[in-house]
C-alpha cells in the first residue's frame, strides 16, 4: 500500500485551530492532510474545560454561521450550558459551555475521520520545505516527506516548549505531550521571527476529595440553547454544576511562604503571558491587599473524576501547590491528580501575519492559534477556520476572505492580530469590538451566513432555512415600522395600563417598542393585531426586540461603520511611485508601499497617517475610483 505524497493543503497540528482549518479545507474540496503528533489527543483541551463567554462565545456563534465545527461539537458534548451577562445588554450577552473534554475529543476525531478529502496521520513534523520564499511541503521525524501547495501551521504551545514547575524545567508539551522540535529552526531559517510566550494551568484534583458543601453551586441554564443556529432552542435538561469557593488569609499566606519557588520570582521563564489569566502567585504579588480570590471548581466531563481549579493557575512546585490548594475552603483535603505547570513556547513575533492568516514572510504558509500569539480555544478555532478558507481560495486563485471588523468578531480578531504589537497574548473580548452593538450574538447568522454560503461551507439548504428565518424577522420589523397607533382615548388608556407614558401623536409599532419595558407582544396588543399574525418563536421575538430597541444606538454606530469599511477596502501595499502621492511624508509612503499593513483602516488605526495625509490619499483613491467607474460605464 503506497502512501500519497502530495496534498493540496497540509495542516500541522490537530488542536482547535488545526481541526477547523483541516475541516474547512477538506469540505471546500481540497485534498487535505492533517498531521498530529498524537491521534489520541486531537482537539485536546489542555487547560480550562469550557468554551464561550463574552467575545469568545460570539466567535463560536460566528464559526457556526460560517460553517465551522466547534459549535456543533461543543453543543453535543457539553455538561453545562449557561447564559452570561443576560441583564447587561444584548451586545455583551453570551453563552458559555462546560465541556466534557473526553467526549469533545472523541466527537471531533470522528468528524475528522468522516470527512471526505481529509487524511489524518500521526507524525512529528521537524522541517518545512521552502523554495524561493514559497512553501513546498514538510519533512517528518521519520524521514517521510509530504508535498503541498498550501501549508497551515497550528503548532499551539508545542514549538520548542518547556515545562516549568518551580526550579524544575524540562522540554515538554502540554499534558505530558512531547514538544515539537526542529520546526522552529526551519521557520527561522526561512526568515520567520519567533518570540517566547508563556502560559500556565492550574492543578486538577480528585472529585471525591472535595467538600462541595462549603461552596456555592453554579448550575447551568436549561433553556440556554446551543451555539449552533440549529441548536438555538435546544434544551439541556441534564447538566452538571460548577462550584465556587474563595481564597482567604490562609491562601495568601500559603502563596507568600512559597513565593521564593515561583517562576515569577525565580525568573526562569519569560514574563510575557496572558494578562487575563494570571497565576495565583502573580495575583498575590500584583494585588497584595486582596485576600478573597475566586476559585471555580469545574468538572472535566460527565464521567471524569477530575476537577479543574479555575483561579489557582500556577507553575510553583508540587509541595507549594498542595499547600495552596489545601488552604482553600472545601479543598482542605483535596488530592491533586495532575499538578499545574507553566509552559514556555515559541510564537511568531508581531507583524508577520496578514488578516487572511497567511504569512507575510513565506508564501503559501498560513498560521493560526497560539502560534500567532493568541490564547483560547475559540480564538484558535476562529483563526483556523479563516486560514482553511483562505488556503483553498488561494488554491482556486480566488480573492481572499477578509472578514471585516465592522461585521464580525472574527474580523476584529484577525484584524487586531495582524497589527498586535503588545507583549501579552491576545484574547478576544467585547472591549476589542468597537461595533459591538451590531456584532451581537443573536445576529451572527444575519451577518455571516451569506459569506458562508458564498464560500461554500454553508450549503443551499441550510442557507435557505436561515434566510427564511431572517426574512421573517426582517419582515416583521418592516411591518412594525409601518403599523401605527393613533392617540385615541382608548389607545391611551391601553398604554396607561402598560405604565409606559402617554401618546400625544401617532407612533409606529417600532417606536412603541423602543419604550422601556414594552415588549413585542405588548405592541401587538396595543395595535390589536391578531395572535395568529405574530411571531411566536422566542428567538425570533428576541432578535426583533433587540434590533428595534437597539436601533438608536446602532444607527450612531452605523455612521462609523461606513467610514471604517471604506478604509478597509483600500488594500495595501499601494503603488507609491504614483506622482500624486509625493505629497505624503517619506515614512507614510514607505509604509503604504510595504506589506506592514493589510489595509488603510489598519494604518489609520495605528496612527501612521496624519489627517491631512489621509485626506490626500482618499482624494487620489476616489479620483481613481471615479476613473474606474467611468471606464466601466463606457465598456
Amino acid at each position, binding site marked *: 500500500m503506497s502512501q500519497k505524497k502530495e496534498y493540496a493543503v497540509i495542516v500541522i497540528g490537530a488542536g482547535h485551530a488545526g481541526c477547523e482549518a483541516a475541516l474547512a479545507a477538506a469540505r471546500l474540496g481540497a485534498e487535505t492532510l492533517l498531521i498530529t503528533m498524537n491521534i489520541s489527543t486531537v482537539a485536546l483541551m489542555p487547560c480550562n474545560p469550557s468554551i464561550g*463567554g*463574552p*467575545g469568545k462565545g460570539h466567535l463560536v456563534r460566528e464559526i457556526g454561521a460560517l460553517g465551522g465545527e466547534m459549535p456543533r461539537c461543543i453543543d453535543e458534548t457539553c455538561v453545562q450550558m449557561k447564559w*452570561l*451577562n443576560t*441583564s*447587561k*445588554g*444584548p*451586545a*455583551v450577552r453570551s453563552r458559555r459551555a462546560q465541556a466534557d473534554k473526553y467526549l469533545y475529543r472523541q466527537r471531533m476525531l470522528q468528524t475528522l475521520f468522516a470527512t471526505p478529502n481529509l487524511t489524518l496521520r500521526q507524525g512529528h513534523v521537524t522541517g518545512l520545505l521552502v523554495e524561493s520564499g514559497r512553501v513546498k511541503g514538510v519533512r517528518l521525524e521519520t524521514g517521510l516527506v509530504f508535498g503541498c501547495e498550501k501549508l497551515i501551521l497550528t503548532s499551539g504551545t508545542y514549538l520548542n516548549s518547556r515545562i516549568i514547575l518551580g526550579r524544575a524545567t524540562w522540554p515538554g508539551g502540554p499534558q505530558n505531550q512531547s514538544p515539537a522540535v526542529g520546526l522552529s529552526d526551519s521557520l527561522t531559517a526561512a526568515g520567520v521571527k519567533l518570540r517566547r510566550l508563556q502560559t500556565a494551568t492550574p492543578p486538577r484534583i480528585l472529585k471525591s476529595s472535595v467538600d462541595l458543601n462549603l461552596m456555592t453551586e453554579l448550575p447551568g441554564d436549561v433553556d440556554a440553547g446551543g451555539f449552533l443556529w440549529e441548536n438555538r432552542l435546544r434544551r439541556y435538561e441534564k447538566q452538571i454544576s460548577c462550584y465556587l469557593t474563595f481564597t482567604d488569609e490562609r491562601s495568601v499566606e500559603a502563596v507568600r511562604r512559597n513565593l521564593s519557588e515561583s517562576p515569577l520570582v525565580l525568573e526562569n521563564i519569560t514574563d510575557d503571558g496572558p*494578562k*487575563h*489569566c*494570571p497565576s495565583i502567585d502573580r*495575583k498575590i504579588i*500584583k*494585588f497584595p491587599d*486582596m485576600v*478573597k*480570590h*475566586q476559585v*471555580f471548581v469545574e468538572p472535566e466531563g460527565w464521567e471524569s473524576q477530575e476537577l479543574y481549579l*479555575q*483561579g489557582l*493557575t500556577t507553575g510553583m512546585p508540587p509541595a507549594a501547590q498542595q499547600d495552596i490548594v489545601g488552604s482553600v475552603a472545601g479543598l482542605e483535603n483535596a488530592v491533586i491528580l495532575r499538578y499545574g505547570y507553566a509552559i514556555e513556547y515559541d510564537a511568531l513575533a508581531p507583524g508577520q501575519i496578514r488578516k487572511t492568516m497567511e504569512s507575510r514572510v513565506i508564501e503559501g504558509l498560513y498560521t493560526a492559534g497560539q502560534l500567532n500569539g493568541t490564547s483560547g480555544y475559540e480564538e484558535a478555532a476562529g483563526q483556523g477556520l479563516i486560514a482553511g478558507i483562505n488556503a483553498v481560495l488561494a488554491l482556486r486563485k480566488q480573492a481572499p476572505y477578509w472578514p471585516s471588523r465592522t461585521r464580525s468578531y472574527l474580523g476584529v480578531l484577525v484584524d487586531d492580530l495582524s497589527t498586535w504589537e503588545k507583549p501579552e497574548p491576545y484574547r478576544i*473580548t*467585547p*472591549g*476589542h469590538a468597537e461595533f*459591538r*452593538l451590531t456584532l451581537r450574538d443573536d445576529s451572527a447568522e444575519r451577518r455571516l451566513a451569506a459569506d458562508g454560503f458564498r464560500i461554500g461551507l454553508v450549503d443551499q439548504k441550510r442557507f435557505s432555512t436561515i434566510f427564511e428565518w431572517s426574512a421573517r424577522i426582517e419582515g416583521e420589523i418592516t411591518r412594525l415600522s409601518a403599523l401605527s397607533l393613533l392617540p385615541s382615548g382608548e389607545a391611551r388608556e391601553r398604554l396607561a395600563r402598560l405604565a409606559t407614558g402617554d401618546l400625544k401623536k401617532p407612533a409606529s409599532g417600532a417606536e412603541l417598542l423602543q419604550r*422601556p*419595558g414594552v415588549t413585542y407582544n405588548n405592541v401587538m396588543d396595543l395595535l390589536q393585531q391578531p395572535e395568529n399574525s405574530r411571531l411566536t418563536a422566542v428567538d425570533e421575538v428576541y432578535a426583533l426586540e433587540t434590533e428595534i430597541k*437597539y436601533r438608536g*444606538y446602532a444607527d*450612531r*454606530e452605523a455612521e462609523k461603520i461606513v467610514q471604517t469599511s*471604506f478604509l478597509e*477596502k483600500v488594500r495595501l501595499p499601494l503603488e507609491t511611485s504614483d*506622482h*500624486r502621492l*509625493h*505629497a505624503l511624508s517619506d515614512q507614510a509612503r514607505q509604509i503604504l508601499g510595504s506589506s506592514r499593513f493589510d489595509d488603510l483602516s489598519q494604518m489609520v488605526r495605528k496612527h501612521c497617517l*496624519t*489627517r*491631512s*495625509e489621509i*485626506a*490626500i490619499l*482618499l*482624494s*487620489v*483613491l*476616489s*479620483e481613481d*475610483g*471615479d476613473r*474606474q467607474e467611468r471606464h466601466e460605464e463606457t465598456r
Partner: protein
Amino acid sequence: MSKPKIDTIAAVSTPAGRSAISLIRVSGPDTFKILKKLFITGGKKAFPLPYSVYFGSVIEPDTGLVADKCLVTTFPAPRSYTGEDLAEVSTHGNPLVVSRVLQLLLKHGARAAEAGEFTRRAFLNGKMDLLEVEAVSQLLSANTSSQARLALNQLDGLPSQFVARIRDRIMHHLVQLEASLNFPEDAIEAIDEHLLAREIKKILAELEIFARNARSGALVADGLKIALLGRPNSGKSSLMNYMLGRDRAIVTEIAGTTRDTLEETLMVGEYPVKIIDTAGMRQPGDRIEAIGIERTSKAADEAFALIGVFDGSQPVKAEDEIVLNRLRQSGKPVIAVLNKSDLPQQINPEIFAGLRQLSVSALKGQGLPELQKAISQIIAESGLSGYEEMILLGAQQSVALDKALTALERADRGIGNIYQDMLAIDLEEAVRELGRVNGETVDVNTLDLIFERFCIGK
C-alpha cells in the same frame, strides 16, 4: 467602491489667537447658497458676481441679528484655490466673533473642514503642484490639534485641567462598567446604578456650569445684546446716539425711520454691551417696514436684556401698550426708560409698576449715569459668569463640549432604563468628546485600564 460625496466645507484659515482680521474659507458646491442665507451685502451689487469683493454683514438668518461686518470675496469654480466654488470671509479678529461666524456656516450646511481638506481638494482638482501640497498640508496638520489647545492655554490651563478631571471621573466608572461587561465572572463589584446615576448628575451639573461659563465667555466677547424697544418716534434712535455719544442712528421726526436693526457696542462698567436699535413697534406701513418690525421681534428674542423706550411727554398710546406687554412677557431683564424728561411729563407712571424705571432726556443729555447704573445692575443680577470664570472655546471645541453634554444627558436619562452595554457607549462618547475639548485625540482604551485595576482571572 463607494466614496464620500463632495460636500461644502468651512474652516478658519488664519492661525488661532487675536489678530486684526481673520479669514474663513468656504469651499464646495453649496458655498454661495449658504452665503446667500447668511450674508447681507451692504451695497446694491448683485451677490455673488465672480471674483468680487463685497462689504456686508453676516447675520443669523433666524433673528436677523448681525454676527459681524465682513468682507466676502467670491471665487467661482474652477478658477479658485480649490477649483470649487469658494468664498473667503474676512471677519474681525476677535476669536469669539470668528467662532460665531464659523458656527453659523456650520449650522447652515457647511461641514468643518478636516486638516488639509482644502489642500486635498485643490490637489484633486489639479490646482496645486505637489510641493505646494506638501508644504501646505504639513502646515495645516501642525496647526489644527494645537489650535484647540491654544485657546485654552491662553488662560492659565485651569479649564483644561477641569475637563481632564471630569474626563477621568467618567473614565473611572466606564472602566468598572466595561470590566463587568467583559469579564462577568471576575467578581467585579456590580455597578450600583443609583450611585452612578447620582454621579452622572453631579458631573453633568459641573459640566453645565462649565458650558455656561463658555456661553458667558462667548456672550461677553461678543457684547451683551440689549435691544431698544418702543413705538415709532419714542426716541429710541436718539437714546442710542446719546448712549454712544455720537450720531449713529438717523433721527428724524418721521416715525418709522429706523427700518432695520442697528447695533453698536459700548462699555458699561467692565462689560461690552451691544445696543441694538430696532424699528418701532406698530402696524407696519409698508413691506420693508414689516420686515424691520419682524426683525425687531427676533432681536428682542435674542437679546440678553430689553430697554423699553417711552415718550414721557405724551400720554400712553396703544402702541406703547404693545411694547409694555412685550417687556413684561419677555422673561428677560427689563428697563423702562421714559425719554424726553426735559418736556412736561404726561405719561402715567403707574403703568410701569413693578418694572425698573428711570427718566432720561436724550436731547438734553440727562440721566445717562442712572441708565448705565441700571444696566450694570441687570448684568450683575443676570447670573452671568464672572470674568475670571469665563471660558473661551473655539468652534470645534464647542461642538465637542455639546456632544459630551448630549452623551451625558443621554446616559442620565437612560440609566436604569437602558442596558449597561448602551450606557457604556454613552460614557465612552463623553470621554472621547471631552478629550476633543482639550484638543486631544486619544484612543479610549479601557481594556488596559481594566487589567491595571481589577484582578481578572476567570
